């Protein structure tokens, strides 16, 4: 494939028209850890299309491959074989530098344990991203979006778990990403706080048009998704399309 398609300024050149509609398309995507009899097959040939602007929930037991898929699509990990395209650009053959640019300009991440910088305030954590993004939101605006306009100058140690996760979401959306990846975003939160976080993610999806992909154990989350992908043994078992996603507030778990 040669060098990845990049243009000056560091964003990706899109090799297919933006009107194509698919954010991601994978074919035969495979990921194997280790080799020989001890090899772990995390993904065993995944074919998937994710339309742009959708909220997608990935469900499945531990070790079923959902996080591995998220990491590969997010440019954090590399596939062993197969193809994974982001709006037509092949991710599997990109150089490290190109993957960094991809993460920097197109992707937002929300992790289970927030991964905020403890030495920076809420606002500064968001600024960490807006300083390197091309067309970012105002950091205060991003924090207002997640309901933290009154906690701008608090350090992570002074915030609750739910608040920290909302700062993480504000940090992820502040760069106006095309895709937001969330790996167990509510995994460390109680149900009320978890619901509030999901609500924020739903708002972000609706208001910014970003594709949101959520990996979760909580099957109930599926109700708020446009598309639910069920994983088992490194393969997609089922893809369900939900014509009428429920508001996050109504989710029971």
């Amino acid at each position: 494939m040669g060098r990845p398609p990049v243009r000056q300024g560091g964003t990706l050149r899109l090799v297919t028209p933006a009107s194509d509609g698919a954010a991601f398309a994978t074919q035969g995507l495979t990921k194997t850890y280790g080799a020989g009899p001890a090899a772990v097959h995390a993904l065993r040939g995944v074919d998937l299309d994710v339309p742009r602007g959708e909220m997608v929930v990935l469900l499945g037991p531990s070790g079923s491959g959902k996080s591995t898929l998220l990491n590969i699509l997010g440019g954090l990990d590399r596939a062993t074989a197969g193809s994974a395209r982001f709006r037509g650009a092949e991710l599997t053959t990109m150089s490290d530098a190109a993957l960094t640019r991809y993460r920097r300009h197109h992707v937002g991440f929300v992790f289970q344990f927030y991964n905020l910088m403890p030495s920076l305030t809420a606002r500064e954590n968001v600024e960490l991203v807006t300083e390197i993004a091309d067309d970012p939101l105002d950091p205060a605006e991003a924090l207002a979006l997640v309901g933290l306009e009154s906690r701008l100058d608090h350090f992570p140690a002074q915030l609750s778990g739910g608040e920290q996760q909302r700062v993480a979401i504000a940090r992820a959306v502040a760069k106006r990403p095309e895709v937001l990846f969330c790996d167990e975003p509510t995994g460390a939160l109680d149900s009320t706080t978890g619901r509030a976080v999901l609500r924020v993610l739903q708002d972000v999806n609706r208001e910014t048009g970003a594709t949101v992909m959520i990996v979760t154990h909580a099957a109930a989350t599926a109700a708020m998704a446009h598309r639910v992908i069920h994983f088992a043994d490194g393969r997609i078992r089922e893809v369900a399309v939900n014509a009428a996603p429920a508001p996050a507030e109504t989710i029971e778990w």
Partner: protein
Amino acid sequence: MNGARRDFRIAGLVEAPEFLFSAPPGELMPDDSRFAVIWMNHSALAAAYDMDGAFNEALLSLTRGAETQAVLRAADRILEPYGGLGAYGLKDQISNRFITEEIAGLVVTSRVVPPVFLAVAAFLLNIVVSRMIRAEREQIGLLKAFGYTSFEVGLHYFKFIMAIAVGGAMLGCLFGVIGGRSLATVYQIYYKFPFLVFRVDPAAFVTGVAASVLAAAAGGILVLRGVFTLTPAVAMRAAAPADYSRAAAMGGILRTLLDQPSRMVLRRIAREPLRTLLAVIGIAAGMAISVAMVNVTAAFDITVERNFTLVDRSDVTLAFIEPLPDRVIHDLRRIAGVIEVEPFRSVPAVLRNGPQSYRGGISGLVAEPRLNRAVGADLAPLPIREDGVLLGSALAELLGVAPGDRLEIEVREGRRPVIEVTVAGVAETLIGSPAYMRIEALNRALKEPGRVSGAWLRIDAAQSGEIFRKLRGMPAVAGVTVATEARAALEKVMDSGAGAVRYLMTAIAAVITFGIVYNSARIAFAERARDLASLRAIGFTRAEAAFVLLGELAVIILLALPIGAVLGYFMGEAVSAGFSTDLYRVPALFVPEGYGAAAAAVLLAGMVSGWLVKRDVDRLDLVATLKARE
């Protein structure tokens, strides 16, 4: 021998304590190629000199508790009528003095260096163990939840500390034996000891191991508090993010000036000021030792260089067996290839200023010496005045005199006059403790006009072989000192023995500096791996992520550089003073290269450490690190 050449058969090779350090007459440094002490049968020697029953040196051994000074005075009184040159005690015996000073230097080194090393080791161990306890808080909580007491868990970590301490101490014992053996060999060769047995002293090992264990325990024990205060429930929950709310707000102008990565660097430094301070001081101390050692090394070189270019500019120094009439100078001038000849008279003397006295000598020089000069503090040559004595600065200091003061000089040769002269000036001295007078004035005081003890020569190098042959063939010549040989001998002395300590110290400085720099970098990486992975996930490049990590190291190093330079300046002065004796003076110099070299060494340590850690940043497994709960 007595002006005649004789042949002898060498009967054996021996060593005597009073000549372990033996320098040619009138010189300071030993040089085996030109000078040796020969023992021979007393009656044979007496016959050769036709002086049956005569002696010119006597050794006394005193009864226990005898008052040395009183014995010396009594001996002087008895020998006075025979022309005794003065008795002196063991402590003034030159060989004894050199070796005693050498041993004293070793003692000082052994008391200063290990504590510095152990303090640094304790500091590093403290940081490592505290990091380990933080990383293993979950396991600590689990053990406590199972019912292990805080004491038992604490003991587990204490055992770990002890394993490191005892392991290190054992290794230290091994290195100690190896180092001790090789040092003993160096000393044996240098001082020509017939044998020097390296004795393994159990007490030294007990002290060494105990000191290491105590230092390690001191470094580690504070950290163990953390084990005791941790409750299982808290330990097994994910650690709350470190609280930075009190570490520098950085609002106002800093808000616009600093980007977030710089802010992270500064907040971390501000949050642990003590740790930062200790790291800064540690690196600064390492640098200071380097600065001091480079300065002292340069000062040694400058001392030698100046002595042989500014003070002694002769090619050859001749010493006569006894003072000769000054027409010998004309004879010397007539030797083919001799360009310039300058006579001198030197006599042993005791210089006194009240209770201060110094046993040395007086050099009689011509009015405007060209080949061997006295120089002032500005290194310009000083004329030798008719009406006073010019003292070397070390000697003036020792006697407590300044220009204009009166000094009593007891000449210990010829008629042994006691003269009183004015201190005419103070000369910058680098080597030895000279006192200069005009040769005519000195001869007048001795009532021996026109006598010379030797001469300095400038010669045509192309004819040196022939000239040396002629000079060495002259029966009246006791010694021919070639400047280049003397310089080599001096450099050798300054380079071995106590002088070699500076190499050891430089190595120590390097170990301390690199140890602290590397440890700081490694700990910073261990503590921030997750933050770095998060930054990489957000889209920071490797270089941008590494900045957050290495910026801290850079700040610590930049803070340490000026502090190290200032510390180094004072340490250099102290070391110069420590190395200086009345035999040679090591000037405390400001050598810019010393600071540059030491700073470069620290920066190099920083770069190597940074590079080693940067490799780990580059290899960081993003997925695994991001998922870690910390």
